[in-house]
């Protein structure tokens, strides 16, 4: 699954640690999500969407068109 987390984070000039603190997860989690090595569960995906004030599908794409 692809995502725009890194771009959205960069737009706000946040470090991975900043984003991790805002989402109440570890920095390793943020890194794994950004690099596409781990897909967040639904509650975390909703938290990310709320934090960036965007719908989930605007942040995460399943790569099937």
């Amino acid at each position, binding site marked *: 699954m692809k995502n725009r987390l890194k771009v959205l984070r960069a737009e706000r000039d946040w470090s991975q*640690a900043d984003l*991790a*603190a805002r989402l*109440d*997860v*570890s*920095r*390793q*989690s943020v890194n*794994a*999500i950004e690099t596409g090595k*781990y897909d*967040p*569960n639904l*509650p*975390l995906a909703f938290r990310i969407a709320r934090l960036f004030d965007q719908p989930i599908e605007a942040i995460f794409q399943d790569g099937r068109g």
Partner: protein
Amino acid sequence: MVDRRTARVWEYTMAAIVGGAIIMLAPVAFLGRPATRSLIHPDRIVIMTIASALAMGWALVFATLSWRRFDEFAKEGSKFAWYWGGSIGLAATAPAYVFIGLGGLHWLWPSMPVGLPLLRAFVIGYCLPLFSQMIGFAVALALWRAARR
């Protein structure tokens, strides 16, 4: 830099290990050496068994606290590691079990004692954690499914 959540998990882990070890070993310091040369000391057996149970209870409390501090990513990693690492590790012991059970150590080092009582002790020692783990797995899975019906 370690974030607060990860730091707390490490604190709980250390508390589980250090606290558990202290509880488990404290009776040894108080009891000292056995008064007689007999191998079986009922009071020692009871006290040390209770201390072991308390130590595991202590460790379990901190393991629970630690698990609650895990985020989803860490939980997934832990589940993967316990399932695959634990299963493969367990499977890897099977050849060692057969080799030792058939007297392989005595064959390599003839000075090593061999005999039926030793074989029984070895089989019990091997099977106790193996069956406990399998039963624990089955119970945890049953509880997990029951909670999601």
